[in-house]
């Protein structure tokens, strides 16, 4: 080890338990043969001893232990109070949550069979009674401004409904012929954007959807379950 390494170890050398016996012996051996380091170590130790004497000389106030215990007592009281407050806060939060949960639980809409039957009656159109006029009357009664398309066979009409599409009430007509069904939604153009030009069609896993121009103001969305053939649902006379 060179002189500067030896000197950097001085703080370890001056303390018990900070150096291995081996390193201590190495330093001692160096000091024995290096008067420069020996002098350096001695001056360092003298300076340290002088500083240590003064730095440790701090008069400790005699009532400090009492002050400490007073502080601990005050703090314990405060901690106990805080604990009570915390428990109270948690308890009231729990009560509030339970009350809120109960309110949500009990405010679910009531369903009963009588009401349900009334809804169904209102929407159901008997097939033998089925006519375009009955549909027009139904939507007028429902308060939906809509257009009832002409070129469908209304004897196949099984159901009329008003459904919310993106928040807008929309007329929905269901036609059934044997196993094939067509669900027709009448969308007002001023509430929905439909791509210009050729109206597109798409096939899902259970249905086929077709967009059809119906009037200047409305677009038809026809959803086929079964055979996706518009002609099946047209009035008999119109099939060419």
């Amino acid at each position, binding site marked *: 080890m060179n002189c500067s390494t030896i000197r950097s170890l001085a*703080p370890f050398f001056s303390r018990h338990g900070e150096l291995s016996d081996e390193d201590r012996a190495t330093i001692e051996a160096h000091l024995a043969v290096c008067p420069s380091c020996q002098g350096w170590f001695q001056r360092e130790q003298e300076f*340290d001893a002088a500083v240590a004497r*003064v*730095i440790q000389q701090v008069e*400790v106030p005699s009532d*400090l*232990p009492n002050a400490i215990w007073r*502080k601990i007592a005050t703090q314990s009281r405060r*901690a106990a109070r805080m604990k009570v407050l915390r428990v109270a806060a948690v308890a009231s939060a729990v009560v509030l949550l339970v009350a809120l949960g109960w309110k949500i639980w009990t405010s679910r809409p009531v369903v009963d069979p009588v009401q349900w039957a009334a809804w169904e009656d209102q929407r159901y159109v008997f097939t033998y009674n089925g006519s375009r006029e009955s549909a027009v009357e139904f939507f007028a009664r429902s308060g939906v401004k809509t257009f009832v398309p002409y070129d469908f066979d209304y004897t196949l009409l099984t159901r009329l409904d008003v459904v919310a599409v993106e928040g807008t009430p929309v007329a929905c007509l269901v036609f059934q012929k044997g196993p094939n069904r067509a669900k027709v939604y009448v969308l007002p153009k001023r509430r929905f954007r439909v791509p210009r030009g050729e109206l597109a069609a798409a096939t899902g896993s259970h249905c086929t959807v077709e967009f059809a121009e119906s009037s200047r103001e409305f677009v038809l969305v026809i959803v086929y379950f079964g055979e996706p053939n518009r002609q099946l649902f047209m009035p008999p006379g119109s099939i060419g």
Partner: protein
Amino acid sequence: MGQAMPHGAFRRLVDEHYAQLYRYAYRLCGSAETAADLTQETFAKAHAQFSQLRDPARAKPWLFAILRNTYLQQRRQEKNHREVPLESLEQPAASDIADDPYDVNPQRLQEALNELPEMFRTPLILFYFEELSYRDIAEQMNVPIGTVMSRLARAKSYLRQRLTIRPPSDERRQ
């Protein structure tokens, strides 16, 4: 209150360590009043967290660490403390201990400590107190031992320079 805490054990902790903690606090902040507050606050925190002290043999470094953290927290709130810039705390060359006479005047010593940034002040104080091992100091400051030693060397060099008696013509500090 309410905690199942061996009262006798904590009383012993206070009796054994309050004086040295106060001395450390005093040298850290340079004020008797603040040092007393820091010591009380330290024991109040230690009392509340006593269950976290797993090894009673580590009580001393644990208390010193609580005191230092409390000091740093409080000082962060004050903000107007004056310290020397780090650049003036150069790493001393191992050979440059001059044989100049020095005077370890208590007031000048405390002034010099106050001027040092805390990261240098704490290793210096704890080195002279000989209360904690270098490993404990490093752990409490969360730096490697080598860093503690180099800060100690720079702090010592600064201290020596501040305590050196210069002829009046060479006196640059008041």
